[in-house]
């Protein structure tokens, strides 16, 4: 049984200019212990699809799907309070901006322990011990001391480690990482990716990696979904995607990598996209709103 199964997911936002379709009929499934990468540029709806799974979209969004099931539970039928018992515990998410996604008013330790209190019902001493264990697991030096640090006292890489600690605190079955390394340096990126993939293998989690970086895909994924303007362009295992990309869009993405530059100019997406782009209601400024 797949861990997460989505059929024909559509998300639209009500805007002044009528509904804007951010996700148009995406199918997706992930098995336990699998690393799935979703690739696409900003505005391709890759984050929105996952936020719909988490139930984190604002009221202006309308989510429709034929099926959206996690571990056999139908997410569409759940009441908000039932959903809150799953989200953060069995499915958890890491966001792009580590410093912005932590609450600046509370210490790292408090924010890790909050999840443990809510979902696991641990007492104070157990929470403390588990928080220290988690901090060690994600590779933070002096965990006892760092528990009392506020987000602004830590570097971006350390904040992202704290975010990962919060996300894996309750041993989730599925971890969704939304551009986890985009805001970080290459050397730190490498460490965080190694950490994520290591944790995934150690605890047998499913991992969904949302990214626009083909290098990150190549380094982490088993299977890849390429998305463009809210639609799925291609789905393949990682090797065949890089060896024989089927859609023109994937080919364009791969050739836009600076290391693949032939001659003086980099090919861009518009140079390469011969097949007519799927019709989308909004372009230009609307893409910024969706990301």
């Amino acid at each position, binding site marked *: 049984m797949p861990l997460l199964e989505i059929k024909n997911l559509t998300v639209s936002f009500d805007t002044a200019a009528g509904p804007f379709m951010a996700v148009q009929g995406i199918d997706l499934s992930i098995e336990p212990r699998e690393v799935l990468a979703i690739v696409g*540029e*900003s505005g391709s709806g890759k984050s929105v699809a996952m936020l719909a799974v988490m139930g984190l979209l604002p009221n202006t969004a309308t989510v429709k799907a034929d099926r959206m099931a996690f571990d056999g539970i139908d997410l569409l039928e759940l009441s908000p309070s039932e959903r809150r018992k799953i989200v953060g515990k069995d499915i958890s998410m890491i966001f792009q901006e580590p410093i912005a996604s932590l609450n600046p008013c509370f210490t790292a330790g408090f924010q890790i322990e909050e999840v443990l209190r809510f979902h696991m019902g641990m007492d104070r001493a157990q929470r403390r011990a588990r928080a220290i264990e988690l901090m060690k697991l994600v590779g933070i030096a002096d965990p006892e001391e760092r528990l009392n640090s506020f987000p602004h006292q830590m570097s*971006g890489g350390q904040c992202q480690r704290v975010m990962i600690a919060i996300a894996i605190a309750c041993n989730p079955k599925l971890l969704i990482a939304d551009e986890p390394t985009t805001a970080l*340096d*290459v*050397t*730190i*990126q*490498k460490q965080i*990716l190694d950490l994520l993939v290591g944790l995934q*293998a150690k605890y047998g989690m499913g991992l969904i990696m949302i990214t*626009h*970086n*083909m*290098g*990150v*895909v*190549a*380094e982490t994924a088993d299977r890849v979904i390429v998305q463009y303007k809210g639609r799925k362009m291609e789905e393949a295992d*990682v*090797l065949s995607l*890089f*060896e024989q990309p089927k859609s023109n869009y994937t080919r*364009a*993405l*791969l050739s*836009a*990598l*600076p*290391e693949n*530059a032939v001659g*003086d*100019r*980099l*090919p*861009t*997406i518009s140079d390469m996209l011969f097949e007519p782009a799927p019709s989308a209601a909004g372009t*230009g*400024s609307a*893409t*910024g709103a969706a990301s």
Partner: protein
Amino acid sequence: MSVTVLEGKNIVRDYHVGGGLFRPSRTVHAVKGVSFSVDKGKTLAIVGESGCGKSTLARIITLIDPATAGELFIDGKKVDIAKDGLSKEMRRKVQIVFQNPYGSLNPRQKIGDVLGEPLLINTDTPANERRDLAMRMLKKVGLGPEHYNRYPHMFSGGQRQRIAIARALMLNPSLLVLDEPVSALDLSVQAQVLNLLADLQDEFKLTYVFISHDLSVVRYIADDVMVMYYGEAVEYGSRDEVFADPKHSYTKTLFAATPRADVASIKARLAKKKAA
């Protein structure tokens, strides 16, 4: 013959962190004696992790902050803004494009005014000429005259970075400092902006100082590469030298950390995973 546009000799920059009642003040050595030179029409890339002093160096080269010690020559002329201040003539020679196109444009200023402002401050070009020049520059960077009266929030990230580049070019500078100009952009948009920069360099014979932490971008655009680590230049040479034979251990770490997107390395990774 090649002409040296920019030369730095032993540039040092210290910051004094003020102490409190019970805390002594400290000195942070952000840049510890860096030397470099760039010829006309060439690109020097400065690579390093965050906090290694590359943006501090960019601010010194752009004549925003003075260096604590060392000499800076622009077009063969020694510049010391700590002593002599900054003349309008010098400001016309050096311009900068910042990393975040969302933060570097004033949200209350129309694009036309953004582009006219450098001319308004540094020259006495009349208003109608400023307008013409701004229109022409918009076309150069791939935007249209219809964008003249729009506000920054109406543009995507890539378009905003084009506007920031256009603003930097309004005064016909000879030296352009690019502080991580594409790191906030998507892969496909990044390719467009890099192409634009290459085209503009050819057209105006611009000299670039390109700051980045993305080695694949550096490999594409740079002629010379300088790797900085904790305020020091640990490696400096032509692109091919540095990429073919990195000497310093930090450079090697940097190369090892860059994700590789070729089929061979994916195969290697999958094989390793299977074995584990």
